[in-house]
């Protein structure tokens, strides 16, 4: 039995005259990787932003893990089990990778209003953070300030933060960008193993990775989903070939 971890229906968003989300409905089930693809400026990141609560939709409904979260603030959605990474990584640069992950753990535990005990001496928090960093392959960089990390390392730290939440679903906005071929292959392997643990909504431009990983693919063009289905269905769809994969040579 699968369970629906994310259900969006009738989502609408416009920036002035520009419609970036046009009647979008989609779901994310346990056990799956659902890829969201589309050309630059199609509205993928804006959609992720609305699901995570940073951008307010004009209309529509968002259910996270069975609860209506259309009006909820980002922090409430994170506590409900929504983990995410950003297209441009959002980390505290002066802090170490470990400290960034420790904060996510602290948030997941819901124990922030503690004013006395020293957080750096909390070995439980520290060990859990190091374990999350080890999973994403940056254990050896735990003590390094984020500002000294490479682009690819930052993505891994961000993913570690998201995993540290013990999420019920993950939204990943271009997790492979800037990783290089080797890092990319490692990340694909990691995402592949994550699938059974937590469902992924994956925004990605790397088509090889998408076709390798995705159980379902939705294609977003000018804010609207023009096709959705398994890899073969989407590949064969003439509208997708026109709009996105190129002029029939895909």
């Amino acid at each position, binding site marked *: 039995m699968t369970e629906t971890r994310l259900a969006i229906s009738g989502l609408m968003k416009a920036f002035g005259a520009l419609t970036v989300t046009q009647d979008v409905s989609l779901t994310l089930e346990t056990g799956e990787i659902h890829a969201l693809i589309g050309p630059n400026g199609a509205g993928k990141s804006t959609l992720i932003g609305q699901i995570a609560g940073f951008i307010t939709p004009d209309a529509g409904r968002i259910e996270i893990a069975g609860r209506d979260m259309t009006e909820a603030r980002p922090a409430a959605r994170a506590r409900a089990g929504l983990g995410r990474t950003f297209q441009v990584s959002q*980390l505290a640069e002066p802090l170490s990778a470990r400290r960034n992950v420790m904060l996510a753990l602290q948030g997941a535990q819901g*124990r922030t209003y503690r*004013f006395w005990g020293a957080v750096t001496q909390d070995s439980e928090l520290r060990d859990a953070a190091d374990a999350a960093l080890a999973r994403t392959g940056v254990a050896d960089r735990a003590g390094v300030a984020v500002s000294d990390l490479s682009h690819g390392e930052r993505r891994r730290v961000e993913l570690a*933060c998201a995993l540290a939440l013990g999420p019920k679903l993950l939204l990943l906005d271009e997790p492979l960008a800037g990783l290089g071929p080797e890092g990319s292959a490692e990340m694909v392997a990691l995402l592949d193993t994550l699938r059974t643990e937590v469902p992924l909504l994956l925004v990605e431009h790397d088509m090889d990775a998408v076709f390798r990983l995705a159980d379902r693919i939705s294609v977003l063009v000018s804010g609207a989903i023009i096709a959705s289905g398994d890899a073969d269905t989407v590949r064969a769809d003439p509208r997708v070939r026109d709009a996105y994969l190129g002029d029939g040579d895909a």
Partner: protein
Amino acid sequence: MPDLSRETLVNAVLLLLLPAAALTALALGETFYINLVSRIAIVALAGVGLNLALGAGGLVSFGHAAFFGVGGYAAGIAAHHAFDMSLFLGLLPGTVWMPVIWMTALLSAALLALGIGAISLRTRGVYFIMITLAFAQMTYYFAISLTPYGGEDGLPIYLRNQMPGMNTNDPIQFFALVFGVLLLTLWAMSRVTGSRFGAALDMARLNDVRLASSGISPFPVRLTAFVISAMVTALAGALFADLNGFVGPSMLSWHRSGEIMVIVILGGVGRLFGPVAGAILFILLEVLLGGWTDFWQFWLGLVLLGAVLFARGGLLGLLAGRARHD
């Protein structure tokens, strides 16, 4: 970690400087200078309060004089009612006991900060600066309108309020009291900034998108910090009124907000001992330059400009190197 021990050393020297100066003044029989050191410690305490909001939280409050003043009026009004044995609002008797006065100051400031913060913290940047300033100006004019408590002229405290087991009228004992409060507050502040709450507050300053994505709402974190910050500054205000034997609207003026902010910036924003360094520097400049020229604030402005342009970490940044994170 050589830098860390260097900062510890600088902090220790800064702390020892105050009692050393007070005891020297005592030995020379210079009461004026004992009181001057007490003033440094009190102003530093006000800065320690602001530093939690400004340094740790990145909240540039230009209205902390309001809390400083609330603390001052708590001391003044309590003493006033105790002196003529009347009732506050026809309900509560006055008191000369500092612990009760401090509690009142802390509580009043917390309530005021809760109100001011709940509104101001919905804004960012320059708007936050302006709105906190506006609220402080409102409390300033409110103090002026307080005719039962002297209105524009303020309120004298004829006898310094009392601490059980001490003679607060003795300048060196009063200094010891003030210094003890400063020490305790610095210690408590180091715990708070190093706690889970401190980690969340740090993140609220560094990246609030990260904070929210970690499941922690930034707004209540900031509001809590703002309230604690106001309470510490109010405690300083209560001591300041007792030091001067007087409280008046000037304690709430925007000059005072600026002064507290200058102290934090001069000393080093976000450094535990920054306000101590800043207060020493500020009061010394005031005394030295003030004795030399009436335009001392102009020269202070130049020093401040230098601090902002060339010594980003303030005096502590110069003495102890850059702030460290792990």
